[in-house]
């Protein structure tokens, strides 16, 4: 029996929880050997195009793809800017000219999570609702003005207890304005559950990036997984 005091909260969640957010369609997962907690879209693209086999911190990485489905389509569209046909053609060029190999492709979220959990350096994506047991979830930073700034202090958001108990999760997308000194000047909500967003905003306001000579913006996706 649901606690009556939770009704308004659940109503709000139901109302806003269905707001379509692109990053909400998938989440990025990685093997525990990957040190980073977040990755920029530029770096992520290079990893999946096999132009990079290590992250900026030196961690070895290898991409894992899903064979199809909404998470795969959303990932291609948002992170690689490519269609499935174009990506397959790209990989075949690498394979048949000796310039690369075909990345691992798996058929379901469960297979990807299992493979990523046991494979050193593996990075993959699964639907936002999939269990991420045994793997870590990476935030995606979309650096808007081409200046990549490293995140040096990251504070994890506190999961609202009620939502966790109700098994409600998702991904919050935020656009951050980062001051030249590295502190967060302002945060704009781009999508996601508003209650989770409140927790996410409170956390990211404490983040620090490396200094830069100018103000920059970054888009981050923060996943909330109730099973973790």
């Amino acid at each position, binding site marked *: 029996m649901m606690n009556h005091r939770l009704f308004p909260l659940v109503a709000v969640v139901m109302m806003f929880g269905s707001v379509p957010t692109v990053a909400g369609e998938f989440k990025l997962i990685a093997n525990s050997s990957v040190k980073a907690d977040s990755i920029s879209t*530029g770096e992520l693209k*290079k990893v999946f195009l096999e*132009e*990079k*086999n*290590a992250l900026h911190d030196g961690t*070895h990485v290898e991409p894992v793809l899903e064979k199809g489905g909404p998470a795969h389509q959303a990932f291609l569209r948002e992170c690689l*800017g490519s269609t499935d*046909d*174009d990506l*397959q*053609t790209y990989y*075949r*060029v690498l*394979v*048949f*000219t*000796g*310039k*690369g*190999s*075909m990345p*691992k492709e798996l058929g379901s979220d469960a297979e990807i999570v299992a493979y990523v959990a046991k494979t050193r*350096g593996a990075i993959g994506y699964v639907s936002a609702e999939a269990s991420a047991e045994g793997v870590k979830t990476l935030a995606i930073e979309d650096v808007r*003005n*081409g*200046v990549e700034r490293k995140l040096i202090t990251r504070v994890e958001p506190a999961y609202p207890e009620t939502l966790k108990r109700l098994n409600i999760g998702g991904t919050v997308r935020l656009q951050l304005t980062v001051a030249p000194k590295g502190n967060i000047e302002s945060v704009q909500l781009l999508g996601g559950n508003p209650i989770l967003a409140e927790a996410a905003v409170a956390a990211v306001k404490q983040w620090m990036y490396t200094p830069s000579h100018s103000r920059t913006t970054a888009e981050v996706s923060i996943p909330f997984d109730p099973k973790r």
Partner: protein
Amino acid sequence: MRRRILGLGFVCAWLCAGSISLRAQEFKVFGRTVQVHGFASQGFVYTNDNNWLTMNTSQGSAAFTDFGLNTSYQVTDKLRVGAQGYDRNLGQLGQYHPSLDWAVADYRFKSWLGIRGGKVKTTLGLYTDTQDLDFLQAFALLPQSVYPTDLREATIAHLGGDIYGDISLKHRLGDLSYTAYAGHRSDSIYSGYPYYLSSFGARITSFGGLQYGADLRWRNPVKGLLIGASRLNEDITGRGSALNPFNLAAGLVPYSEASKADWANQFYGRYTVGRLRIESEYRRYWRNQDLFNGTSESFADVHGWYVSGAYRICKRLQIGSYYSRYTITNTVAGALAAFYPPATDTSLPDNHDYDKVITGRVDLNKFWNVKIEGHFMNGYGSGPYPNGFYTQVNPQGFSPNTNALVLKTSLNF
């Protein structure tokens, strides 16, 4: 003949089997994955007039087969090794003599710096390294002005090494990819140029030499736009024997030819928007060489360009068209000048080949496609450097126009 029948039989069996079950093979060695991939294609060409690409196409010819098989292995996180075998039969060329297409060890230090060594596919323009891979292309035949399939050995690979990398530009200016290479080019004696020389009674036993160059391509901020430039330099020597044109009674005498200047510049662009892909390339090839043991010298200047468009109507169907333009001029100095008058008028069909092409590609599944293509050619560009039309298979002489129907199917896994 027996080799041809065996080869064709193998490919046909593979094509049939492919529709039943076809998948890349993977297995583990010392905990790391070994991948095995392959491809095959079979074509048929019919022309209304001149025989084309060394085939007897005016009667209809299916002597248009190729296949390859590769394996690769990730030795360490940064080191990968692999090799591919390739074989083809194109009319009088290839003749099912297999070759090592590439065999590389590739070490990537950083995204901006990697090295690969061994027999390496040459990066020159959009398609030099992938010209054999029919399943990747919208067209059954790439524009022959820039990618002459009869001369694939001239640019396909070098025994040496590449330095390569990808650099992200600041301020969202896109990405640069570079490749610099040097090595030894070695042509098969079953390739187009030795076959061309055989029309003069020459029997080439070796043909190759130093090849070096670079490629720079820019994926720029305009979404879907790629532009690039390539440069190739060569120092090539051919050896064998030939009839002495000044004394035919002497029979075969030693023959050699060697580069004095041999280079190509190529500029290219590709724009992809939605289901539409538009491409254009321009290649200039300049060749100055000593002929017949240094008694003569030739100067050939080749210009080739094309504009192409391909549109994917639906998942299974793609259509495309291109216009390809090839011109060549040539002069010979020295003792052989008397035999070869200057060829400088590119309006003559002997010195050009203009090709209008329409194509349709049907993807039967992810691994198997069928193409039908029409070529409407003016000129035959059969001058001092071959371009698809050879006198040996056209003993009656050339007609100025050639229409061709090309059917092709290919598989990959």
